[in-house]
């Protein structure tokens, strides 16, 4: 039957959950935090703006450049960061439940290396220069393709969607694709290498209202589907046999959940490169405070992930003046100390 190797490594924060907030309160608190993060992201940037100028620009009045900065640069970027952060956090939480592994994250089934392979191929071949949308489409195709490859390998082993086989296949396919990427880069010219590496470090600099709307169309239904699957996911997080014994349709839940979680990860990577840490740690942070129940965890992770990535994006834009830090760097450098602080809170008796 099931193995017990998937016990989470995070310690419970308190002995009793007496004073756990009701879900509505948690969501409200996190929504307020997200709102504050969004407002700060629009307020701050490389060009200093007063609050009055900011409000004018949002309304469309005032200097055309300022309006452009606020409406075409900062606002879409903030919303894109929020959407991507939410998608990555929910995707990570879903994979952690499905694979019963605390180290699962959105890219675990080869999504990031597939996307990077697609992106690098278009950069090296020069296709990304000729066609504007080539890079995100190729990255998305690469992500989905590598996930399908992982599933194909898992199926051929015989045990359909066994979590241990999936994890192993994911690691193997990732290694292969990463080697392929380095091979492509070895023979590429310096500028391609530079462009490819920059893409892989992740960035929201290309955000526009069009990309935000495409993201929203792809992400919001997937998020809704996963929220609806919260209870079966709870059961699956305990074990697949247990879930079956309690009446869950295990195969169908797994199929839908894997599909939606991969879609969330693939779309996020295609749009903004590989941003690590969010999908792994934000769900754990939410669990440390409020437990593993996915009915609360998934929406909370969405809001918290969005707020976290918006804050990281703001920092990456403002910490070093006009020099933008890669966002993957900021999420890890800032997120790790916060997470360590969370881990070190007094453990339960």
């Amino acid at each position, binding site marked *: 039957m099931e193995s*017990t190797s998937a016990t*989470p490594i995070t310690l419970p924060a308190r002995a*009793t959950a007496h004073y756990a907030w009701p879900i509505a309160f948690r969501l409200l608190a996190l929504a307020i935090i997200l709102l504050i993060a969004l407002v700060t992201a629009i307020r701050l940037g490389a060009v200093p703006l007063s609050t009055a100028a900011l409000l004018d620009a949002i309304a469309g009045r005032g200097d055309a450049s300022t309006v452009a900065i606020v409406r075409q640069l900062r606002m879409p970027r903030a919303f894109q960061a929020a959407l991507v952060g939410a998608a990555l956090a929910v995707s990570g939480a879903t994979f952690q439940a499905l694979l019963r592994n605390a180290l699962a994250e959105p890219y675990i089934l080869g999504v990031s290396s597939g996307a990077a392979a697609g992106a690098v191929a278009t950069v090296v071949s020069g296709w990304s220069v000729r066609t504007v949308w080539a890079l995100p489409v190729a990255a998305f195709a690469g992500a989905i393709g590598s996930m399908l490859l992982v599933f194909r390998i898992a199926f051929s082993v015989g045990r359909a969607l066994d979590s241990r086989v999936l994890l192993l296949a994911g690691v193997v396919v990732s290694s292969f694709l990463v080697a392929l990427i380095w091979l492509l880069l070895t023979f590429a010219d310096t500028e391609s290498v530079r462009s490819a590496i920059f893409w892989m470090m992740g960035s929201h600099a290309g955000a526009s209202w069009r990309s935000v709307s495409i993201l929203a169309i792809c992400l919001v239904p997937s998020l809704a589907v996963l929220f609806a699957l919260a209870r079966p996911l709870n059961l699956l997080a*305990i074990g697949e046999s247990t879930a*079956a014994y309690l*009446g869950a349709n295990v195969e169908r839940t797994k199929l839908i959940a894997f599909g939606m979680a991969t879609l969330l990860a693939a779309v996020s990577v295609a749009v903004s490169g590989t941003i690590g840490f969010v999908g792994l740690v934000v769900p754990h942070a939410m669990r440390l405070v409020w437990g593993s*129940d996915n009915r609360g965890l998934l929406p909370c992770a969405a809001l918290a992930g969005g707020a976290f990535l918006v804050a990281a994006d703001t920092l990456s834009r403002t910490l070093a003046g006009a020099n933008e830090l890669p966002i993957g760097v900021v999420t890890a450098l800032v997120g790790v100390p916060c997470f360590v602080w969370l881990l070190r809170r007094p453990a339960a008796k």
Partner: protein
Amino acid sequence: MNSFNAGWSLRDIRFRHPRAPQDAIDGVTLETRAGHITALLGPNGAGKSTLLQIMLGVLSPSSGSARFGDRPLAAWTRTELAREIGVVPQGEAEPMFTVREMVAMGRYPYLGRWQRERDVDAAAILDAMRRCAVDTFADRWLGTLSGGERQRVRLARALAQEPSVLVLDEPTTSLDVRHEMNTFELLRTLRDDGVTVILATHNLNLAARYANDLVLLHKGQIVALGAPVTVLTAEQISRVYEWPVSVELNNDGAPQVVPLGAPPETPPAPLRARRSMEIAT
């Protein structure tokens, strides 16, 4: 709980794992009795867990017929089965749930996708927790509990399903004496309340004291079936478990198995398998 005949009727079940060289279940015919405790015994690899999974509809037999209650097993949906059968499996992961959240999962088969918990659900959960004596720490995280307490929580979850049958797969393997005895006492109480209990266990002696019927499995076949005294004979146990034992009756008339020293040098006699069994009363 329903008042129909909550029991299994298995006829000549065979099952082979994919790519396995031989059958894991090699012709098993079994009828369980409602309202009784039936214990599945047998050495490691005899097929106890596999048989349980077939009975629970997780694995499909290659041949033979399996019926549960009034219809074939295949005619039951997972939700319907979940309302009748509560299962306490071996080896689960432990995400960070509170005791109450874990027990509340037993109500899954009764709630629609978006439905909130109703009073009847809350009552069932509370009742299950009380029976298993876990209601005093209902708000604690699972990770803060001991192994025995966690096992009781799982049992409470199964009871929250308000099942007519309880199936347990080696429920006391890692528990100490007190918890083990508590578990078996609880099973006896449930049996007295009308719940059918099927359990697979290694503890021959406690099975002999608490179970109504014993089923002895060896290499996928039933070699003995019936009341404890007929199943737990020294000759049968020594042969099946490949270790010499002697059997004594205790004060209540239940046979108790006592393992002896090192086995003799002669190899054991070949197994006499009986293919179809009726339960002897």
